[in-house]
């Protein structure tokens, strides 16, 4: 395991972009643990600023129209809500709903199927995926960062490197450093549970919280701990989404996977371009039967502003999500339950009122920075029109 250093305080105090929701005195936002960055990639304000610039640079795509920020839009809690699945160059669609960057610093694996071990590795792949940014290789990026005067100066300042010494390692480290500043807690739930403000939640939200940790069993995967809550267990589960639509194809598709090991690059392309293969989930990475149709537990922070839901964006509302779980892993009651369904998913016998309370509770997980960003964005557009 890599040695880690505590970098949050420095990052918060020095970060140029006011994205980070800071707690008092540089401690992490209420409800989040102290953040650790890998020893090999310490946070510096200059590196974070460089990473943000790279994150927003559309030139790093085949058409010059797609940056990381296209699908991870700050105004949409770093997703592309309300798109069902992400849209890359030439309006090409992938197979998966853009996961938020917010609090991804705490993930132990990245991508819905966990095919990347960390943020540094993750950012390499969308550049060269044909349905995302569509480059054939990373050379065009290197050409830009080695020649653009602003980048030349920044890379020299941050990494002490120029010309051919600047590689994708430096590029991805800067992007990851920026992403590690995008953390947010301090939601009404945090103020209630960790801050002791009994009035921070409504009565319905309090009922929903009780259901969340008891009858609804949500907390089994969307973890809440005594001092902080990431709302994810960083694990992978088959919850009957996606896989349910390809059940008849599983033997053929799984057989292909088991017969020949694909390279990581091949897997990256295949899972975003072929819907059926995508639904095999983490099995594509581990080839373990236990992982068939399983995807990473997403955080629930800011969930109310990032519709639609699930790895394939197939459920439009949080209520639909709750109904799916309440049915024991099928969206429509009575549908065929997936043979490989995770053992944790079973009918919950929640009433309509209880489902409403759970949805209301999830609406209390939005941090101030992202409260109704869609509404704000809509308001801003109207301003422009006037």
């Amino acid at each position, binding site marked *: *395991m890599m040695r880690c250093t505590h970098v949050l305080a420095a990052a918060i105090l020095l970060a140029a972009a006011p994205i980070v929701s800071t707690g008092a005195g540089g401690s992490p936002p209420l409800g989040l*643990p102290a953040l650790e960055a890998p020893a090999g990639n310490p946070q510096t304000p200059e590196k974070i600023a460089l990473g943000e610039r790279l994150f927003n640079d559309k030139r790093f795509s085949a058409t010059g129209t797609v940056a990381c920020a296209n699908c991870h839009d700050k105004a949409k809690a770093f997703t592309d809500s309300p798109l069902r699945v992400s849209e890359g160059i030439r309006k090409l669609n992938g197979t998966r709903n853009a996961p938020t960057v917010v609090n991804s610093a705490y993930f*132990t694996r990245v991508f819905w199927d966990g095919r990347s071990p960390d943020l540094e590795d993750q950012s390499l792949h969308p550049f060269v995926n044909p349905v995302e940014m569509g480059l054939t290789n990373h050379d065009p990026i290197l050409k830009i960062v080695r020649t653009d005067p602003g980048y030349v100066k920044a890379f020299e300042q941050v990494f002490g490197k120029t010309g051919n010494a600047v590689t994708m390692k430096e590029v991805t480290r800067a992007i990851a450093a920026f992403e590690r500043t995008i953390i947010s807690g301090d939601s009404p739930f945090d103020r209630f549970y960790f801050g002791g403000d009994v009035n921070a939640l409504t009565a319905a939200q309090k009922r929903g919280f009780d259901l969340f940790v008891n009858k609804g*069993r949500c907390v*089994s*995967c969307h*973890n809440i*701990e005594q001092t*902080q809550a*990431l709302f994810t267990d*960083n*694990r992978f589960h088959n919850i009957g989404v996606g896989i349910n639509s390809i059940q008849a194809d*599983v*033997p053929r598709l*799984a*057989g292909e996977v*088991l*017969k020949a090991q694909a390279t990581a690059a091949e897997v990256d392309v295949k899972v975003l371009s072929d819907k059926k293969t995508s639904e095999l989930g983490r099995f594509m990475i*581990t*080839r*373990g*039967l*236990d992982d*068939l149709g399983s995807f990473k537990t997403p955080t629930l922070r800011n969930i109310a502003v990032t519709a639609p839901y699930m790895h394939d964006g197939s459920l439009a509302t949080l209520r639909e999500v709750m109904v799916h779980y309440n049915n*024991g892993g099928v969206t429509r009651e009575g549908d065929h*339950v997936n*043979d*490989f*369904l*995770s*053992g*944790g998913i*079973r*009918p919950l016998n929640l009433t309509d009122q209880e489902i409403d309370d759970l949805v209301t509770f999830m609406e209390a997980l939005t941090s101030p920075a992202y409260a109704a960003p869609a509404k704000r964005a809509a308001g801003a557009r109207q301003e422009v029109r006037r």
Partner: protein
Amino acid sequence: MTSTTRRDFIRTTGAIAAAGALPLSLVEMAFGDTARNFTFAYISDAHIQHISATKFVRNWDRGLIRAVAETNLLVPKPDFVVFGGDLAQLGSKAELDHGAEMLAKLGFQTRCVMGEHDYYLDLGEYWSNLFGPQHYSWDHKGVHFVVLNSVLTYDDWTFKRWPTAEQRMLEMAGLDNPNGSPFMVGEAQRAWLGKDLAAVTKDTPIVVFSHSPLQKIYKGWNFWTKDADEVQAILKPYSKVNVIYGHVHQIQYNQIGDIAFNSVMATAWPWPYPQSYAQAQQTLPKLTVQMNRADPFFERDATGWQFIDVNTGRVAMKYNLYNNTNRIVAFDAVTGRPVDKAFQDPSNRIPPQDHY
């Protein structure tokens, strides 16, 4: 919060990284002719339990459904599948029919072993209608396979003790039950076994399937077969005997003389009982001893199924364990007994969680 899960820990330390990855590799060659190597799959102890009308206990259903579906995905494909007994919970037609329907989805020839939960309602009559004889043998690619019904008991207990068949079934299903009776293969089957083996050369690999262990482990739960010693005596002249049994819902292995013993996992629930089941509606028999469990969230944790090769003339048992670390218990030619390929060395073991 820990930053890595237990499973991640295992993977990154590389201890058994290969065990969880399919396709399985056949590493040991016994016959010099690799074309004769083969695998078979083993599913056991589904305990399909009827509640009322078309309703069955969901958890037990899901366990068997998943094991069948996963077995069908195996690459390379197994030559056949064995179901190791206790398909039903209380031996009813509804339970046996429902279980048979699920087993019918296996894309392979399926051989069945009688369990006490299948037997003691109608003394195996309906089970035999569905699955055929209760003891039999066959040869496959140089290995002699034998199935025994090891869950018989004294005629007095079976025929004279109980006012109803239902009560007889319930009494035999109980644990720590003073009204119970020890399992046995019985004189008639032992005589049949002796005759069956008479035609088999002494160095032919033999695999015997029984529901209860053909060795004596724990009498209170009938982890026990009363005439195990007599059965072992019949097997003793043969140099490569492997006994595979269900019933115990946990991984066991042992060596007595030249006879290697391996148990298989249940698809229903693990023994001893995990405490976590107390969270949900209790559909289990009385709780006696509790077991620590990796993650109480997962109903399937500590259950599983297995694929097996006999390529050395000895059993290599690969356990497919849900939400857990897959394990391999294979006969070790050096020590002359089955060993766990990853965890036999105490320094490689994962200490059980002792705090909450």
